[in-house]
């Protein structure tokens, strides 16, 4: 299990290299990476603020629940903070389980919970100003399925 909250850029594929391999029982590995998306074509940067200390605690708690619930054999969470450019990976999760249904469900659960329960806040910086990204009702509703 590995959790990293970091300012440094990372490549999700590189981080996933070797993940879950050589572990007896692993039959399925799922990774998810979120990328800074420039929806309006005007995004200069995305600034991600976080709550040092609570961030690590919250992620560890969410991860422990996923590991127990889907019998994960390995798991990984990386989340950046600070200033990111369009197209840069913001965060990733990886899950290794016996079967694909477990690995997929755990990865989706991690994403849904990290999005609404880990203390990160995004601010979009454009040429004309800066705006905090509002939480979406759909993201909060997504938690109901778990």
């Amino acid at each position: 299990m590995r959790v990293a909250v970091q300012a440094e850029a990372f490549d999700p594929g590189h981080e996933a290299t070797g993940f879950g391999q050589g572990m007896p029982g692993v039959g399925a590995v799922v990774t998810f990476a979120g990328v800074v998306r420039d929806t309006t074509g005007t995004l200069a940067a995305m600034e991600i603020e976080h709550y040092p200390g609570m961030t690590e605690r919250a992620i560890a708690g969410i991860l422990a629940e996923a590991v127990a619930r889907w019998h994960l054999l390995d798991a990984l969470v990386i989340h950046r903070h600070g200033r990111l450019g369009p197209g840069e990976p913001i965060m990733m999760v990886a899950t290794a389980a016996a079967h694909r249904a477990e690995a997929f469900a755990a990865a989706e659960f991690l994403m849904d919970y990290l999005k609404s329960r880990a203390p990160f806040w995004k601010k979009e910086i454009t040429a004309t100003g800066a705006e905090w990204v509002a939480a979406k009702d759909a993201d909060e509703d997504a938690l109901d399925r778990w």
Partner: protein
Amino acid sequence: MIDVLYFAWVRERIGLPRERLDTAAETVADLVAELVAREERYAAAFADTSALRVALDQELADFSAPLAGVREVAFFPPMTGG
């Protein structure tokens, strides 16, 4: 004494990331009332607490939660990670 932390637009409206307060507030809601009474920038930040979240010692909590024994209170908008 209690550490009070502010994040995202709450931090921006209040104009500082954290402060150390001497308070007799019994609950989070009492503390918010105290802050709101202090200065306009606090009133602006806490105008709609339904748009806010609170954490006590780094665990999410309700505004009705007691502050007894708590060392760190944090106020922030709903998270937007991932």
